């Protein structure tokens, strides 16, 4: 499989905190890749760097070979990287359908926006299709602020997808939602993946990640620690240590492993 998204040597410090320290990872085209790691390991910061909300101090991000480092978020989205947020971000005072429509003009110039009406028939039907896919089509005309948390997560998923991005970054899609909905979301991701969509998912829910992802990368203290299939990662002692805050020195750990 070809590599769709690649981050190389990303470093970023916020004041005294080194959030990312030479982090590298890749997402293969057509895969569902998981990104896990203890709190503070830099997962969300990496997402922010990839999607252009935060500039890295060093390193690069490429999408199908094209360098997208340092691009503004709207440009990144136009190039094909879509993303959801941990704490759902929707536009509360407009309708659910209108929320969807904001995203349908991925590659349009702003000037065009002045002269055309809010939506064309094709856009509306595409939006409704996606709303239907996630199961909230009924709520299309409801003010988005009235949605429950779970419904918001679904809306966010829908409007990221409506623009047909090449790769979708999901930041804790299963966070704070009940089990049935988690399975629903998991199913939807699988369905979309079967038709070729690439996903990069940050999650804490281990079952979710392990059952869904083809590949998992573990992050720890701003670096990529281990990459591999879910089973490989699960068996790796370094990963357990990272989560339980064990050995500070990886070399010590490694030498212990080698010498028993």
């Amino acid at each position, binding site marked *: 499989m070809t590599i769709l998204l690649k981050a190389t040597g990303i470093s970023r410090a916020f004041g005294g905190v080194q959030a990312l320290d030479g982090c590298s990872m890749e997402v293969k085209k057509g895969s569902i890749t998981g990104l896990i790691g203890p709190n503070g390991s830099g997962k969300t910061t990496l997402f922010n760097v990839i999607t252009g909300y935060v500039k890295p101090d060093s390193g690069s991000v490429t999408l199908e070979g094209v360098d997208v480092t340092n691009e503004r978020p709207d440009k990144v989205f136009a190039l094909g990287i879509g993303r959801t947020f941990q704490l759902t971000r929707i536009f509360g*005072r407009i309708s659910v359908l*209108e929320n969807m429509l904001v995203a349908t003009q991925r590659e349009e110039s*702003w000037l065009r926006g002045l002269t055309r009406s*809010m939506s064309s028939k094709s856009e509306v039907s595409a939006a409704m299709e996606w709303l239907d896919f996630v*199961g909230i089509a009924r709520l299309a005309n409801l003010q988005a602020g*009235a949605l*429950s948390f779970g419904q918001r997560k679904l809306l966010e998923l829908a409007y990221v997808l409506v623009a047909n991005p090449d790769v979708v970054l999901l930041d804790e899609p299963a966070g704070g939602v009940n089990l049935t909905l988690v399975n629903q979301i998991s199913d939807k991701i699988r369905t979309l993946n079967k038709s070729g969509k690439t996903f990069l998912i940050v999650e804490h829910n281990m079952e979710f990640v392990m059952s869904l992802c083809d590949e998992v990368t573990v992050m720890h203290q701003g670096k990529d620690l281990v990459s591999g299939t879910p089973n490989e990662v699960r068996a790796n002692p370094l990963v357990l240590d990272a989560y339980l805050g064990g050995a500070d020195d990886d070399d010590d750990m490694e030498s212990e492993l080698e010498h028993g």
Partner: protein
Amino acid sequence: MFQKKNLLWLVALAVFLAFPLVVTNPTYTTIGVFTLLFMACTSSWNMFSGYSGYIALGSGAFYGVGAYTMALCSLHWHMAAGAAMFWLVPLGGLLAVLVAIPVGWVVLRVRRHTFVVITIAVFFVAQLSAINAGFTGGTAGLSLPFITWGASYYNVPFYYVALAIVIFITALSASVRRSRFGLQLLAIRDDEDRALGLGVKVAAVKLTGFSMSAFVIGMCGALYAMFIGQIYPQFVFDPLFDISIALMAFLGGLGTLVGPLLGALVLESLQQYLTVSFSNGSLYLILFGSLFLIVILFMPQGVVVALRDRWTKKDERERDAVASNETTLMASGTK
């Protein structure tokens, strides 16, 4: 409902058109002119600040730019006092836009709260510049070519030009609300960074809205200058202007179409009437301030929205029921 709304607009338009023909007393038609000017300014202000959430409290600067454009051009081009000067009105608007673009480019980069503060600063800089710059005549002000249309008839042309501006901005606001551009402004209001992440060219959209708003306000300022005939920087750049407009928009309903018009209609005619009746400026300040506080604290959504919500209260309860009941999501099934 669709036809009823349109009918209401037509009736209102008819009333406004007929007004000066029915009420000929110049005192009242003067109030009419000022009311229309404020309706236009409030509507224009709302088109940007209401839709985008960027509360601009410095639009008075554009009003002043328009006024001075009218004054300076009519004087320096030695224009004959009369209808020809009306052509300077759009020019006033245009100059306001030329000022708005660089100013907006700088001030729109900051966070919303900072933005409000900066616009206040912009306003005072504009006022200070008008007072201190040589060509503006300083505090002595400027006198425009004296229009001699006769006392009883004088107000009427101004009234209709002002009405034309009101119609223009209302139509513009309505079309913006229906356009993709309007949707983007609303998205920016709710979550600007998210909008950016979804492809909205936030900076360009904000600047455009800001400039469009400045255009109409500039035109109003130009018309005002022509109407009054004599302008002074401390009156043309009036600190109360911006706060009045904000209040009118809030009273009527920020972000709605008819709200600003309604708010301005009620407040400005009230204000004008009070100014004519009460000569005590301080009492006026106290009344105004109190009214403002009452509106902000008890009806922050404005009259229009408050009424509309009362109308659709049934629907709201329905919606709440839907939103809280997540299991219905499961029932709707998945494909």
